[in-house]
């Protein structure tokens, strides 16, 4: 299995975006990001209803090694957060693309997706 699924878009700051059937964006951090951070011990999530801008810090992960900001790759309104991460932050390490998602955004500008990388470009970005 690839560490970077083809159906996702990736930001240079190592978040991924998945567009669901309703056109909303689910955001998490990549396999590479969780691997570099090491064991994740706390996740701080934004509040539902918050308006966010692309490339703005909206969440924080703390691993045994370091604290790291999570940026929203797209602008819009936070419509859901993954509360399970509060008690089980290790899910981000175990399932970065599934159970380890962070938040969902109702996008205000879908053209921002075009600035994100596909899996191949992101894999190359991680190798640099």
């Amino acid at each position: 299995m690839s560490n970077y699924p083809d159906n996702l878009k990736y930001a240079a700051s190592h978040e991924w975006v998945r567009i669901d059937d309703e056109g909303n964006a689910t955001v998490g951090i990549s396999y590479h990001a969780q691997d570099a951070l090491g064991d994740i011990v706390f996740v701080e999530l934004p509040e539902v209803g918050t308006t966010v801008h692309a490339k703005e810090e909206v969440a924080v992960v703390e691993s045994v090694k370091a604290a790291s900001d999570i940026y929203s790759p797209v602008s819009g309104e936070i419509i859901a957060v993954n509360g399970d991460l509060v008690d089980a932050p290790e899910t981000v390490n175990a399932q970065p693309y599934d159970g380890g998602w962070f938040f969902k955004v109702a996008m205000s500008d879908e053209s921002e997706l075009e600035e994100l990388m596909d899996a191949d470009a992101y894999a190359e970005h991680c190798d640099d």
Partner: protein
Amino acid sequence: MGKQTALYQQHIDAGAKMVDFAGWDMPINYGSQIEEHNAVRGDAGVFDVSHMTVVDVSGRDATEYLRHLLANDVAKLDVPGRALYSGMLNEDGGVIDDLIVYRMSFGYRVVVNCATRMKDLAWMAQQTSGYSVSVEERPRLAILAVHGPNSIDKVTALLPAEQADAVRQLGNFRGVEFDPWFIARTGYTGEKGLELIIPETDALTLWVKLLSSGVRPIGLGARDTLRLEAGMNLYGHDMDESVSPIAANMEFSVAWRPEDRDFVGRTAITEHRKQQQAGKLPCLTGLVLEQRGVLREGQKVVTDCGEGIITSGSFSPTLKHSIALARIPVNSKSCQVDIRGTLTPVRIVKPNFVRFGKKIFD
């Protein structure tokens, strides 16, 4: 590429993520630092710490030389195998390094930090002046540290019966020589365990046998969280040449008596002790954050008596919240830490958090 221990390929084979540590390629973890940490607290783990520097001291004046060189007193080591922890100070009372010294049949064996190797060796050589003593680095020795509640059983199961008996009977800070092997009850985790100093040509066989008997390989990441929980200092973080041992919770390792023992730095740290009693020299203490968040090295500490700094901080896998060592004004009662711009209240505790798998502070 950095220097490699005799077990480099074994680390790769065990899935290690390798990092540079003071010029050495060392395993930071083998997948999950927290799982490795828990393996040492709950069962048994092995660390390859062969990057550490072993120095053998022998000769007619070996004892007097070390009594001058070190803040602790090797005269306490009444029988071969006994060990003690000490600071090696400069004349200003700063810590050049911290180390373990073992009394051996041939004299003494000193284990110092790898990052300070060059300056330690230079200092130790310089201080030999006037003593009939030989100071010899032993770079071909490997060190495997096996720690955890089941570690001694796992190691002794691999030894000949007579050696196993001798190792089982060792008290803490005691060792036994099976030339060319040396096995001691010392370590850096707050758990029972052994350090095996062996020829590097024997390291591979021992490593494979340990892993086959269920001992988990443990990286430097977990080594750091284990030592922090145990309240043990890390050189270059909790103290260095600019910090007095009195301000680094190392006074327990200073042998003030006999009063006429003239060790390097004695005059300076005698003065430091007076300064601390007068409230003018900080102390190293423990901090506990029971809410969410992680204390990190370098974060500013604000107390009712002034400002301080976190010297080591992390998430404690055993306690499941953050702990730290911090250098703060003596007599501080209340304390806050600047965590990413937010002053967060923390509790001041003795700098010992976990021993034998259990929380030990109130």
